[in-house]
């Protein structure tokens, strides 16, 4: 039903609406009964005046009878009501009262929740005063000769959560630490990762003795190539054993490609291994094969540029590096890009 603030105001509003209804009814009565020849400008103006007055009486009364949720924009609603009631004699009043009655019967809107609008977050590319992560802090603690051995042990242990490729060089340097506990912990951390990979290799190797379908054989060889490559990538092998791991990775990649020649990632792997052992021609061929089989050329541009550099084809280096969009280049590549993009 109609929601009003108090019965007195409700009665007052009803009274005013009835008054407006009488005024508008009287005006319409006069319009209908007045003889055409007796219509003068003054007479029309007086009718319009009475109509305006009645609308002026009815609009605030209608506003008062409105459900509270419709009363929010009072100073905008009030003129609209007045225009409606002024321009359609009796009809405007009837429409307004009907709309108010309908609005009161409609279900109420849910209560507004205390939620504020927030701005859409935006990525801040550089914020030099904020240090993300504790990698640098841990590294400096480890290398500090003033830090206590127990703190250095804890810092070393915390490095277990970081990627092996990142921490491996540091762990190798710790093998020579003056403090035995640090040496041992660094050793065990390197050994555990190496052992994990070796165990996986040992699990895969016997599978090659079984009678496998070409696709199964391809998968086993690919896994072995990737595992040997991981030993190299994570700096877990050195010296002659490094070269041995290279050979093994290349051999298994070759055997996998013999089964499925369109594995672009394996061609890329073989290309990188060839480059690593200084075989420029093979490296180039393998990388071209990778691109031919769908490897994203833009990701291979740094390697192609490196090969061109090793061939001493410096204009080609410049050309290849200029193809790399500056925005997507890795930070470690940026100095090289800057150097080669400088005018000669």
């Amino acid at each position, binding site marked *: 039903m109609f929601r009003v603030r108090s019965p007195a105001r409700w009665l007052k509003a009803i009274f005013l609406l009835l008054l407006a209804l009488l005024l508008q009814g009287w005006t319409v009565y006069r319009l209908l009964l007045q003889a055409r020849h007796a219509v003068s400008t003054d007479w029309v103006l007086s009718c319009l005046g009475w109509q305006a007055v009645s609308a002026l009486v009815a609009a605030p009364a209608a506003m008062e009878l409105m459900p509270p949720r419709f009363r929010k924009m009072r100073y905008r609603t009030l003129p609209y009501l007045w225009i409606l009631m002024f321009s359609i004699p009796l009809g405007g009043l009837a429409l307004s009262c009907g709309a108010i009655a309908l609005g009161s019967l409609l279900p109420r809107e849910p209560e507004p929740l205390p939620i504020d609008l927030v701005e859409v977050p935006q990525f801040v590319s550089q914020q030099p005063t904020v240090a993300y992560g504790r990698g640098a802090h841990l590294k400096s603690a480890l290398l500090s000769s003033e830090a206590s051995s127990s703190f250095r042990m804890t810092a070393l242990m*915390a490095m277990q959560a970081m990627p092996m490729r990142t921490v491996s060089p540091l762990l190798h340097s710790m093998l020579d630490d003056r403090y035995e506990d640090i040496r041992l912990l660094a*050793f*065990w951390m390197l050994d555990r990762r190496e052992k994990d990979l070796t165990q996986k290799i040992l699990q895969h190797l016997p599978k090659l003795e079984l009678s496998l379908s070409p696709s199964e054989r391809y998968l086993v060889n690919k896994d072995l190539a990737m595992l040997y490559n991981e030993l190299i990538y994570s700096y877990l092998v050195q*010296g002659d*054993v490094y070269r041995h791991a290279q050979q093994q990775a290349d051999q298994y990649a070759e055997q996998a490609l013999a089964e499925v020649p369109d594995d672009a990632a394996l061609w890329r792997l073989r290309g990188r291994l060839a480059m690593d052992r200084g075989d420029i021609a093979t490296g180039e061929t393998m990388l071209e094969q990778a691109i031919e089989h769908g490897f994203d050329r833009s990701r291979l541009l740094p390697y192609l540029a490196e090969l061109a550099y090793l061939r001493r084809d410096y204009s080609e280096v410049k050309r290849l590096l200029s193809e790399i969009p500056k925005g997507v280049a890795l930070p470690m590549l940026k100095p090289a890009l800057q150097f080669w993009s400088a005018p000669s």
Partner: protein
Amino acid sequence: MSPILPRAENADIALLLEGTFPFVRGGVSSWVNQIIRAFPEYRFAIVFIGSSPENYGEMAYELPANIVHVECHYLFDFSNVDPRSRKPSMVGDPGVFKQVAHLHSQLRNPALSHQVSASVRRLLPLMCPGGKLSADVFNHSQRAWTFLSDNYRQFCTDPSFTDYFWTVRIMHAALWKLAAIADQLIPVRAYHTVSTGYAGLLGSLLHYGNGRPLLVSEHGIYTKERKIDLFQSQWIRDNRSIFERDAAQIGYFRDLWMRFFETIGQMCYDSSHEIVALYEGNRQRQIADGAPEAKTRTIPNGIQLERFTPLRAARPDQVPHVVCLIGRVVPIKDIKTFIRAMLTVLHSLPDAEAWIAGPDDEDQAYADECRHLVESLGLKHKIKFLGMQNVTTLLPRIGLVVLSSISEALPLVVLEGFAAGVPAVTTDVGACQQLIHGLPGEDAALGCAGAVVPIANPGALARQMLALLQDEVLWLAAQQAGIARVERFYTQQQMVADYRELYLDILSADSVVWEN
């Protein structure tokens, strides 16, 4: 079938041995065997402490005749525990738990760590079965539960109470077993432990129980080794969420275990009469770990020269291009670094050969890894796994003793090699620098008996092996230095003389009478 273990009413010295002689082969076991045989005038009792029986096979050593009593105890053998057995409800003595709380407040305060031993000594008589602090009271009383849950709320930074509860239970379980062992051990005149840890704690409990002196001879540093194990162990839970985790702070349970082993090591040092290290580096480490400096001394290992001296005459004229790693095939010996180094050695010296002489049944997975590495590097015909060998038949046929270990104390195999005229290339661990280059002064003047390289560095190991094998003059100089050093500083006579003095001292000492 297990042999019947000798039993006696009493003995002179009880050797407290954790995970070593007579069931496990190795340097410490050889040393124990050597010491027992060197003192036929004393009757020894052996108290072997292991984790659980399935981890140990048959005895690896023949028992010398002067071992009159042997008992074996397994601290983590719960096969006799019936999980369905119901325990009576218990309340617990408030006074006793007040003492326990006081002990724990001492444990948490490093400044009071030396007072811990006295508190434990007062609680020890209460820990026997039926006592006011028996295992049943710890496991099943209301006060123990309240104490444990209060401590969890107050101190534990790990969110899991379940893990806290079981960590504390399993950590303490060994204490009552050790107290029971101490309670029923035959009377002896002195106790000798070759490590701290659980054996050391048993020594402390025995000393507190009857006042007889305790001698500690440490080969490796037990607390250090346990801490390294704990740092890298995967079984200790850390339940902190990513938001609670501080990368530079280790988990609560790991820290709790470390403090546990530090504490029992400290108790062992506090209750000992003398603390012996094999070399100065370890003595300093013992002092850093809380050993009273006045009680510490070094007695290096020594070997029976007469067993090895004749082997020099059996050597060929030319230096054999055979390098030999004598030791168990276990990760701590880092056999893989030796194998990797051989890949480089064989590139320069194709006729070289490598032997690995030692039991490989202790860590089968690691032995398999080593064999696979040999195969995958294509060295199957150049690297041989010989298994357990008699060193006296091995040493005349080799050109170098190699030790690629990541941790050692004072390795006997290096001394045996020196005595047989074989130089060594070792990693920079334990007393190896001292053995190869000598201590400053008269020792160092004897020359360099081989080479020392950083751990886990196959390249450096290979370079030093090649340098010695390819330069006969250098090799001969190293041989002479090794012979001179072992004959001058590392004989069994010297070691036995030092221990005779110690044994006489502790056997004649009066029993300590405690004032509570």
